[in-house]
Structure formats: structure tokens, C-alpha cells
């Protein structure tokens, strides 16, 4: 497909947004940090600092460990979900998205509550206490978030596999194992590898888990950058480390983007129909058992978190914890009331989702062309590479002096949330669009519609679910966004996740649990809206 004419013009707003609020601030941050730290030699010395090197090591260790476990545990479950038909399959596919939409702090606090000494699981099993803190706890949190992604992407691989190719192998004499190796297995490897890389990136760049579950000895690069800038007041060192991080994670990010392209279905390709689980096939049963164990484990953790947050177990009971959440004492501690924090959270998330969707529609049109998809897609996915801390750090450094003092805070929070949601919103819309046959669009063009009008009239209505998904996904990501928001907000603009962190950090556990419960209820409402009508979200 040739790039749609007018694609360049329509992609200008989104390009301008990414350049002005990501590329330019980040480039300026890197340049000034390098200059302030004494050029390359100074940067080299900073990177040689044992704590910085430890942070890089921690990132790689936590990322690799989480990715390896997520792929090992998630791949068989992905095969099961992608290939087999069983009661509740559609619901399961939707539920798999829940952890991704959950604010990270909820799971972090939940794991800490459940597995630390005195926690629900630690009291039932001595070994479970190991998972309450340190690297095991961090990896557990990463798994709860990312394992379902591996399952989903592997299942997507199953679904885009060519049924004709698989059946050709069988009729040419290839055994079922051969059909897997030479036919339908390959896209599942691509899916699992994409899921593994995404898990690696999310885990290596995680912020809240090392901060709350381990402390400085487990800091990832992301946490170390935050610490250097806001605690140790060494912005130049933070900038240099951010540049190193970007270079370090460039390859896996590009790898993920390259692999994700292979998971798009060809228009017109016969979709693989699922087949029923047979109790007579040992492989079917083994896959079903593994899926049940793995997803059941994730569900158990989430259910326990849900129970713990909705019924906080303070000494005075759940009612007292919920009452305390809305008390003047909590307002005084946070600097604003919890309803005000909820209001800030919703306003920021709605505004960020609105911006993301407004930018996503013309960007999705521009990425319809194969060549422009590659080049533009790379630019639009840059926010995925620029981590939340680096983005917030760069935005604050570059834009605060221009926009003014506290008045700029809400602008920067909304911009950062929109920027971080943009790649996922774009993917949610671009994937169903890329699977649509061009015939309707081309028919509209021959009837006199411009290319963009034809796109709006013929393609967008057919990808309506993708558009709604993009909006809700952007909203959900904004709702739970903690890292960049934490970096940018002042007490007046505090959001619920940031308030939750404040309460948890002050060891106000039952009240923090109640706050987490409130956030969880809002996130679950978004999930229900997202999965209504059997929508599918592509990551």
C-alpha cells in the first residue's frame, strides 16, 4: 500500500506533540546534562559510579528475571487461550487485560500486604514470606502485571497463524509437531518474544516496586534517576543516567516494535478457528492445567489484593479505615482531600485520553501506508522508549521555566499522561484498521471522498471498537499513572495514586488500603466499560 496522500499533513499534529513534549525536552535534557557533567569524560565517570552501575545491573536483573519467568509461565497458557475453545474463553481474554489496567501501586501494596511478615499468605506458608520484599517481591509484582501480556500476545500469535499453512504441512505428511514447528508455532514465538521484550522493558524500567518493596539496594535505573534528581539534587547526573538508559533500552524497544508488526493479521487471511479441548489428548489437558495454575495464581493474588483493599484490616476495622480516608487528618497529611485527589485524577485522565484520541485518529490514518507506518510508527512509539521518569524529568526541566510556576503543573501532568498513553492508544486503533480490507475505503474514494474523508467514513466506523478501546485504554493508563505524575505534581494537584503512595510511605496502611480500594473500583469500572461488547485490545 502506498502512503496515503495527505498523511504527512495529518500526522503533523501528532509529530509536533511528540517533538515538542518528548523529543525536544529530552534532547535538551541530555545535552545540558552532558555539558554540565563535563562532556563525555564526565559522563563516563558518572556512569562508573558504583550506585549507578548497580542500578543498571538491577534493571537488567529484574527485567531479565521477570521476562524469563513471564515467558516460561505465560507461553503455554497463551497457546491454550489462543488455540482452544472452552466456556468463558472470551471473558478470560478480556480479564487478562485487568492487571495491565491496574494502577501499579495497588499491586505493589497488595503484594507487600499479603506476603510480608504478618501478611495473609505469609501466615499460611513459611516460604511465602520470601515474596514479601526484595527482588522476589519485585519480580512477583512484575509477573502479575506482565504475565497476562505474554499470554495475550502469544494467543494473538496463535490467532494470526496461517491455517492454510498448518493444514498444508499436515497434508504433506508433517506430524502435528512438525505443523507446530513449521507452521502455526512461529507466530506464537513472535508473540511470546514480543511479550517477553515488553515484560523486560516494563520490569527494567519499573519505579514503584523497587521504591516500596526493597529500597535503594534494588533501585532500577528509573528509581535511581528519580533519586538523583529529587533526593540527591544532582540533575546533571540524573540526565546522563537517563541518556544511558535510553541507549541501553533502545534495542529491546525496537525489537518489540518489529515483532509487534508481525502480529498484525493480513486482511482476508482465514482466522484460525479455535478447537474444543479434548480430554483424550494429554497435550490439551497439560496446557489446560498449566493455564489454570498460572492464571489462577495471578487471579488469586489480585483477588487477595481486592479483598485486602476493600476490607482494610486495621485495628479498628474496615469502616474506620474508609472513614479515615475522608477525614480531616488525612486531608491535612496529603495537603488536599481525597475527593479532590479523585477529582484531579479523573480530570487529568479524561484530558489525557482526549488528547491521545485526537492525536491517534490522524496518526492511525497516516500509518495505513506501509512505508509511513514504519517511519512514523517509530516516532510515535518513542514515548515507549522514553520512560515516565525521564519524560517527566525532561518536561519539568524544559517546560516549567517557559510555562511558569505551579500553573504549569496540570498542563505537564496531562501532557505526560497523554504521551505515555499514545503508543498504546495508537496500537489499539491501528491494529484493527490494518486488518480491514481497503475495498470500502477505495470505493468511497472513487465516489468522490478525499482520502481522509474515505478513512473517516469507511474505515473508522468499522474500527469503532478500536477507537473506543483507545480512548478507554488512554483513560485507564492516565488513571493509574504514578511515576511521571509523582515527579511533576505539587500537593494542590495530587492524584489518587500519588496520595496512595503518600499514605503508604507514611505507614498509614489501612487508610492506604482503602485508597487503593477506591482506585481499584474506578479501574474495574473502566475495565467493565472496556470489555463491554466483546472489544479486544491489542498491545
Amino acid at each position, binding site marked *: 500500500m502506498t502512503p496515503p496522500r495527505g498523511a504527512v499533513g495529518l500526522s503533523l499534529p501528532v509529530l509536533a506533540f511528540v517533538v515538542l513534549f518528548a523529543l525536544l525536552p529530552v534532547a535538551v535534557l541530555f545535552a545540558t546534562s552532558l555539558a554540565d557533567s563535563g562532556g563525555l569524560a564526565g559522563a563516563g565517570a558518572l556512569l562508573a559510579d558504583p550506585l549507578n552501575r548497580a542500578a543498571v545491573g538491577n534493571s537488567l536483573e529484574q527485567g531479565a528475571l521477570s521476562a524469563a519467568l513471564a515467558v516460561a509461565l505465560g507461553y503455554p497458557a497463551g497457546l491454550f487461550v489462543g488455540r482452544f475453545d472452552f466456556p468463558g474463553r472470551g471473558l478470560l481474554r478480556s480479564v487478562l487485560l485487568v492487571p495491565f489496567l491496574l494502577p501499579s501501586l495497588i499491586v505493589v501494596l497488595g503484594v507487600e500486604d499479603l506476603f510480608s511478615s504478618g501478611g495473609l499468605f505469609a501466615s499460611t506458608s513459611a516460604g511465602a514470606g520470601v515474596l514479601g520484599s526484595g527482588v522476589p517481591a519485585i519480580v512477583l509484582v512484575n509477573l502479575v502485571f506482565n504475565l497476562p501480556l505474554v499470554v495475550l500476545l502469544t494467543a494473538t500469535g496463535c490467532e494470526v497463524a496461517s491455517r492454510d499453512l498448518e493444514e498444508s504441512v499436515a497434508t*504433506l505428511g*508433517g506430524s502435528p509437531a512438525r505443523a507446530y514447528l513449521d507452521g502455526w508455532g512461529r507466530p506464537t514465538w513472535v508473540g511470546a518474544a514480543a511479550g517477553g521484550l515488553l515484560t523486560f522493558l516494563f520490569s527494567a524500567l519499573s519505579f514503584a516496586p523497587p521504591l516500596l518493596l526493597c529500597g535503594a539496594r534494588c533501585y532500577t535505573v528509573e528509581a535511581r534517576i528519580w533519586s538523583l534528581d529529587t533526593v540527591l539534587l544532582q540533575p546533571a547526573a540524573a540526565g546522563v543516567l537517563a541518556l544511558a538508559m535510553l541507549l541501553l533500552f533502545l534495542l529491546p524497544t525496537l525489537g518489540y516494535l518489529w515483532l509487534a508488526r508481525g502480529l498484525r493479521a493480513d486482511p482476508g487471511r482465514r482466522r484460525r478457528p479455535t478447537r474444543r479441548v479434548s480430554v483424550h489428548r494429554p497435550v490439551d489437558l497439560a496446557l489446560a492445567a498449566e493455564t489454570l495454575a498460572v492464571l489462577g495464581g495471578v487471579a488469586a493474588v489480585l483477588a487477595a489484593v481486592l479483598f485486602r483493599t476493600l476490607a482494610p484490616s486495621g485495628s479498628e476495622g474496615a469502616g474506620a479505615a474508609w472513614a479515615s480516608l475522608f477525614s480531616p487528618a488525612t486531608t491535612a497529611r496529603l495537603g488536599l482531600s481525597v475527593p479532590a485527589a479523585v477529582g484531579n485524577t479523573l480530570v487529568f485522565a479524561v484530558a489525557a485520553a482526549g488528547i491521545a484520541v485526537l492525536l491517534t485518529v490522524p496518526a492511525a490514518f497516516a500509518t495505513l501506508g506501509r512505508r509511513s507506518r514504519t517511519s512514523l510508527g517509530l516516532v510515535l512509539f518513542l514515548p515507549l522508549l522514553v520512560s515516565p521518569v525521564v519524560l517527566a524529568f525532561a518536561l519539568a526541566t524544559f517546560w516549567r521555566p517557559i510555562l511558569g510556576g505551579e500553573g504549569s503543573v496540570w498542563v505537564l501532568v496531562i501532557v505526560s499522561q497523554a504521551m505515555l498513553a499514545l503508543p498504546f492508544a495508537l496500537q489499539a486503533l491501528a491494529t484493527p484498521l490494518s486488518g480491514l480490507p481497503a475495498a470500502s475505503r477505495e470505493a468511497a474514494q472513487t465516489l468522490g471522498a478525499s482520502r481522509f474523508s474515505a478513512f473517516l467514513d469507511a474505515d473508522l466506523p468499522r474500527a469503532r471498537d478500536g477507537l473506543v478501546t483507545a480512548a478507554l485504554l488512554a483513560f485507564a493508563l492516565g488513571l493509574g499513572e504514578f511515576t511521571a505524575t509523582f515527579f511533576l505534581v505539587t500537593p494542590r494537584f495530587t492524584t489518587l495514586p500519588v496520595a496512595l503512595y503518600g499514605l503508604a510511605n507514611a505507614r498509614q496502611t489501612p487508610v492506604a488500603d482503602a485508597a487503593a480500594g477506591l482506585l481499584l473500583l474506578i479501574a474495574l469500572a473502566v475495565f467493565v466499560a472496556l470489555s463491554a461488547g466483546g472489544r479486544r485490545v491489542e498491545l
Partner: protein
Amino acid sequence: MSSSEPLLEVRSLSARWDHRPVLQDISFEVRADEVVVLLGPNGSGKTTLLRCLAGLEPLHGGEVRLEGRDLATVPTHRRGLALMFQEPALFPHRTVFENIAYAPLLQRRPRPEIDEVVGRFAGLLGLAGFEDRDPSTLSGGERQKVALARTLAARPRLVLLDEPFASIDVEARAELRAEFRRALRESRTGAIHVTHDREEGFFLGDRVGLLFEGRLDAWGSPGEIAQRPRTTRAAKFLGYNVLPGPDGPVAVWPTELRVRPEGGSAGTFTVVAAGTVGAEALVVLRSPEGERVEWRIPEPFARPAAGTQVSFGWPTSRPVGAGPGRP
């Protein structure tokens, strides 16, 4: 096995999708080395039938025997029935050589034999020199040739061809048909070919079956099927006009209609449209009952105006029954 003995026997085969019958009581035989064509419109069950034979869909009833052996418990990959799809389904990560060599490699044939087999089938289908090419660099027709070469190199007992020319442009299709026919003959491989294209079916088939709504309506040589349609459905599918005769409906070929100014027994027809098709004029008319009738005149520019009333007679006709025929 002698060529008169059936290679494949299909007995009372039936299949269902979601409790809905898609194939009912299908029975036929295929001899070694012969090409059987199953003709039918879209949705008649052609593809499902091939998939049932290959073991890709379960049978609801009946049996399939290959060289006398019941295939009920034989898995797809051990049947020796190679199915070739409308889309070539080549391995995108393998070269043309590796695609053709796929089955011989699975069969662990010695390397010199593999080289010889690939060279033979590549040569047979005009693919010599393409061996190192990536499938994505080939045209649609070339990919189908590679798919057929890959299928023949597997030495299947029977090739199942599911409308392999449907996505090929008309010009290339004619050439490809000829090459497929020659390749099947020279490799002495039998085939069941399903298609909705009458011309293709009669060109390729040693024997032809007509499949309508999951039932086998007729079975015989191309000449028998084309010249003597037994049912109204078959006659219409084959391109005949079905007109009222003195003893019931008759099938009349569009070139057999003759103008009768004095009036014909079938009444008066109204010209809807007329145009030139090759060396003939094609006139579309409506009968008094609203049936569409085609009339071909060997004068390309003889086009009666729309609305003209015409009466016909016909020198030859074939009586057709309303019910389904039986092979």
C-alpha cells in the same frame, strides 16, 4: 493396483457444521492417475468435502477408503492426500527450493534424490532458476506453481486441489491450467479438483461431478455432464436456458435458440440488454414468467434493442427433471 480399481472410495459421506448438514450422502470413486473435478457454486460444500477427505474435518457419517483402507482413524499427515489451497500457503521463511523439498526432507529421502525431485518438478512447472528465490518475490501464478511442485514432490497418493486458480488473473489462469494438467499427467498423479468454473472443470477433468447444496447431483465424463444435464439445477449451472417444452422443462443451449416470427411455443421474450462477447452477441431476455434467458448470436454486432419482443423455437432440446440426479 490396476488403473480400473478405485484408488479412493467415498461411501455415503455426510458432514455437519453446528448440526447443520453441509454434505449429505456423497458417494463416488477415483481411479489412480485420473483427475476428477467437482463442480459447484459457492457454498455447495466443495471445500468441506476436500477437507473431510484430508481428515481436516470430521465425518458425520459414511466412510472414505484409500486403496481399500478405511481412513477413519488415519490422521491427516499419514493419509497421503495432499491438499492445495486457493492461496498457495508457502513457507515465507523458506526459499522456493526449500518449499518444494519440504516433504522429501520430512520423508528423509537422500540428498541427491531430493535435489533430483526438486529439479524435476521445478523444471516441469517452469520454475527452473527460481530455486533460490524468496516466495515473497514471486507472482501469484508462480507461487501457485511452487505450491503444486511442493505438493507433487510429496508423492501423494492423490492431490486435492481447492480452487487453486481462483486468485490468479484470467490470462495467467489459462496457462496455469494447462501446466497443472500436464504436470499431473506427467507425474502420473491422480487429483480431485474442486471449482465453480465450468470451463476449468471440463478442461481438467477426466470425470466430473456436480455438487449442489451438499449433494452430488451428477457424475460422469465431461461430455456426458455437459451434454446431458439431468436436472433443472444442473442445466442452469452449466449455462443452459431451462424453457417449457411440450412434455416438461427442457434445457436449451443459448446458441440453439432460433427466432420464430410466427411465435414460439414458449411465448414471447423481452430483450433486457445486449452486448458483444468475443465473436458473438450476447442477448439477455426475460421470459413471460420472469426467468432470465440467454441468447447467443454468431453475429457480434447484431444487438436487438432493449424492450424488443422475440419468440423462439429450438431444433434440439434436452428434457430435464426437477429432482436431483444420482451418479
